[in-house]
């Protein structure tokens, strides 16, 4: 981190570490691979330009190598995604079935069943909408801590815990209703 701030050419290590995470976040937010690529590019270019202004907030007691860089980067990504959404009003909360419609020549029956299960879970998450959906994705896909999610969404940790709890309740109810044919 310090090396990258001192010399932008050293930014590569940070880029390699986080590019997949930022892209993944953008795909879930925008629902389109091309839009996600564009958002990823803008995020890293902004991060590179803003690197001298980045302030490390991690404390020594957080452990060796602890850094708030990922939070800072995801906040940039969130702003980039929001900006794209504002300009792209046709589909503010894009449905995402990309993974589930991609061709898979070596598919087997077990994989199909798993994919069906994943698809229904994903659709239930997608129906949550807003920050509840966002918090669930950051928790389960990015495996972020409650503290990290709170910093990215600009909420308290308690509020994020409640968001995720309600999100899980919503997904569980949705899956149960659909299994029982009530939805």
């Amino acid at each position, binding site marked *: 981190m310090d090396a990258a701030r001192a010399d932008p050419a050293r930014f590569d290590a940070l880029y390699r570490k986080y*590019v997949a995470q930022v892209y993944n976040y953008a795909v*879930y937010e925008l629902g389109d691979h091309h839009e996600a690529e564009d958002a990823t590019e803008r995020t890293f270019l902004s991060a590179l330009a803003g690197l001298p202004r980045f302030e490390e907030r991690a404390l020594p007691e957080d452990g060796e190598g602890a850094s708030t860089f990922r939070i800072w980067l995801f906040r940039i990504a969130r702003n980039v995604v929001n900006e794209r959404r504002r300009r792209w009003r046709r589909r503010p909360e894009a449905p995402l079935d990309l993974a589930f419609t991609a061709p898979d020549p070596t598919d087997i029956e077990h994989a199909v069943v798993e994919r069906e299960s994943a698809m229904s879970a994903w659709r239930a998450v997608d129906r949550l909408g807003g920050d509840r959906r966002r918090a669930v994705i950051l928790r389960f896909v990015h495996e972020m801590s409650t503290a990290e999610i709170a910093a990215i969404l600009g909420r308290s940790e308690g509020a994020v815990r409640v968001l995720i709890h309600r999100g899980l309740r919503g997904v*569980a109810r949705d899956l149960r209703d659909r299994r029982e044919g009530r939805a």
Partner: protein
Amino acid sequence: MTVGSSARDGEIEALVVDRYLESLLARAPRDTTDVPEDLRATADRLATGLPRYHPSFRFEDELAARLALAAGSATGTIGEVIDFRPPRTRDRGATDDGRGQVRPVVVGGVVTSAAISLAAAWMAWRRGRPPGEPRMRAVRAVARTRIV
């Protein structure tokens, strides 16, 4: 029960679920007796079922080149070779945490998984392995024959 105590119960359950999720995502699930069964089952499903998306390698490398150029212009070293290393193959597996997690990964729109990778590897191994029986050798020889 008052509205206040109901909200507090909800917060307590949210805290209990949060602790369970912390352990689940650390691959060391704790005792689940205090976590409602439907929430535990849903959490388990989401923890393994939601795919991760990885950019195409071409995009990743092209963006690395553009960032190198931007970094060069920031330091006034345009034209010099900047050490933006080529991507490391080991970073491009189906998992990114090295903890043996099996989760679908989508690379540039193509689904992969540890199971599918294994199936592909097995197919490649089978194709490369000399068949034992003469009949199978004949079948493969015919299959390899191109019609001209």
